[in-house]
């Protein structure tokens, strides 16, 4: 049997084994630390306590999670729309690029914990300030990624399209926009992780419902098992949102699959 045939006969490495073993090992270690009394359980609940809290509080948690997911998704949609609009304007008009670039950058230097109470003060305890905070934190990665994507187009491609008689809009539609798709999804993946966390922070600083509100309540009652349960929910929601972005990317960019096959 040749080397090539031998290699072809070998099983593909199981990529899920290493991370699964790591997670299980960390959970076992954590459980051991609490079970053997190295850290008191009222300070650090064990994984089984957290799992129990997740099960017993499931109805309440799901109710609050729904609110948070709603705020995160609406905020993310607004952030993506704003980021797309700003990036398009910056690409089209050099003067807009020069005018907005500093403001866009400065907007990201303001801590969300500083701006969230102000938004609550100005806009009340409803959904609007949360959505606005999520939009503010998510538009930046989209804007930067799209602006870079638009600029990445080969100038020769633009020249080629001009020789076809393409208008500026057609160059944008057929060359620049698809070329920016990869960058857009990279930005969207980062924004998706910011979205849930942004919504929770906004709820934490003022509101009536949502995981952030629930978190402040259980923290005040020193129910750290429930607090950890919320953290688990937040992580799962963020991962689910990232998975959704990955699926969307695969659907919107079918050529990536062909590229991967061609290079493998």
């Amino acid at each position, binding site marked *: 049997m040749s080397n090539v045939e031998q290699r072809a006969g070998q099983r593909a490495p199981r990529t899920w084994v290493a991370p699964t073993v790591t997670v299980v090992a960390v959970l076992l270690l954590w459980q051991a630390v609490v079970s053997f009394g190295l850290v008191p359980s009222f300070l650090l609940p064990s994984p089984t306590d957290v799992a129990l809290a997740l099960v017993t509080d499931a109805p309440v948690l799901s109710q609050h999670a729904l609110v948070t997911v709603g705020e995160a998704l609406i905020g993310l949609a607004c952030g993506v729309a704003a980021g797309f609009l700003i990036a398009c304007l910056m690409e089209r008009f050099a003067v807009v690029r020069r005018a907005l670039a500093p403001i866009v950058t400065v907007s990201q230097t303001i801590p969300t914990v500083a701006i969230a109470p102000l938004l609550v003060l100005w806009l009340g305890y409803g959904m609007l300030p949360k959505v606005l905070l999520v939009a503010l934190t998510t538009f930046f990665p989209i804007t930067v990624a799209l602006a870079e994507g638009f600029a990445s187009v080969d100038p020769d491609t633009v020249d*080629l399209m*001009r*020789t076809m*008689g393409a208008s500026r809009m057609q160059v944008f539609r057929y060359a620049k926009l698809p*070329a920016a798709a990869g960058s857009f999804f990279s930005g969207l993946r980062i924004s998706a992780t910011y979205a849930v966390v942004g919504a929770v922070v906004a709820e934490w600083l003022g509101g009536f419902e949502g995981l952030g509100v629930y978190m402040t309540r259980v923290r005040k009652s020193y129910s750290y098992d429930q607090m950890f349960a919320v953290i688990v929910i937040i992580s799962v929601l963020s991962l689910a949102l990232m998975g959704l972005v990955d699926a969307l990317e695969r659907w919107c960019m079918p050529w990536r699959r*062909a590229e991967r096959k061609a*290079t493998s």
Partner: protein
Amino acid sequence: MGEALEARGLTLSWEDQVVVEGLSLTVPAGGLACLVGRSGCGKTTVFHALAGLTEPDAGQVLLGGRDVTGRPGQVAYMLQKDLLLDQRTIVDNVALPLLVRGMKKAEAREKAAAEFARFGLAGCEGLYPCQLSGGMRQRAALLRTHLMDCQAVLMDEPFSALDALTRNDLRDWLRGMIDELGLTCMVVTHDVDEAVALADDIYVLAGDPAAGRPSRLVGEVPVPAPRADRAEFALSDEALAIKRRVLKSLA
């Protein structure tokens, strides 16, 4: 049949430096000319002007007697790279000029797909550029250029990225295809052998713009052999004499 392409007294600059001065040449309708010159002498600058992408400092570009100076979309231009868009299938890449002209997507695809067999691309319609070999990509780029429906075509070193064997095959195929389509064609190359194998006329551009000496046309060498017999002609003493003349002009 294509239309005659003519440059009259073109002077071209790049970043405030005169690159080409007083260039005049004519490619007759259905003719195939090559522009040869050393790297950096301004061949691509000339093509940008002929394609209407840049305005000359002086002079005119005429297509079939019409002034097309600084008007893109009149002369088809196949740039050095194939520039197929990664995110579009081959049929959608090739159909791009039709879509730009406002044709409906389905109709454009149908019209483009009808030409695939003629260009040796049958079965590649739904593939992406990354799934094609260099030679096939160039064929696709040429089909896209053909669908621009222009009477004259400019090709800037179309085979430079290919290996020697593929280049030879594609050169023969291109010659036949240009004959069949009756196009007026001008090719930039720095390969004198390629120029002799392809052209009816070889224009030699020489100068050193970077050193402040703008390039000028220093020679026009006709190749007096039918295009169909070029493979045999390339091995003859006459072809060797033409190469010597071109190289002498370049020196």
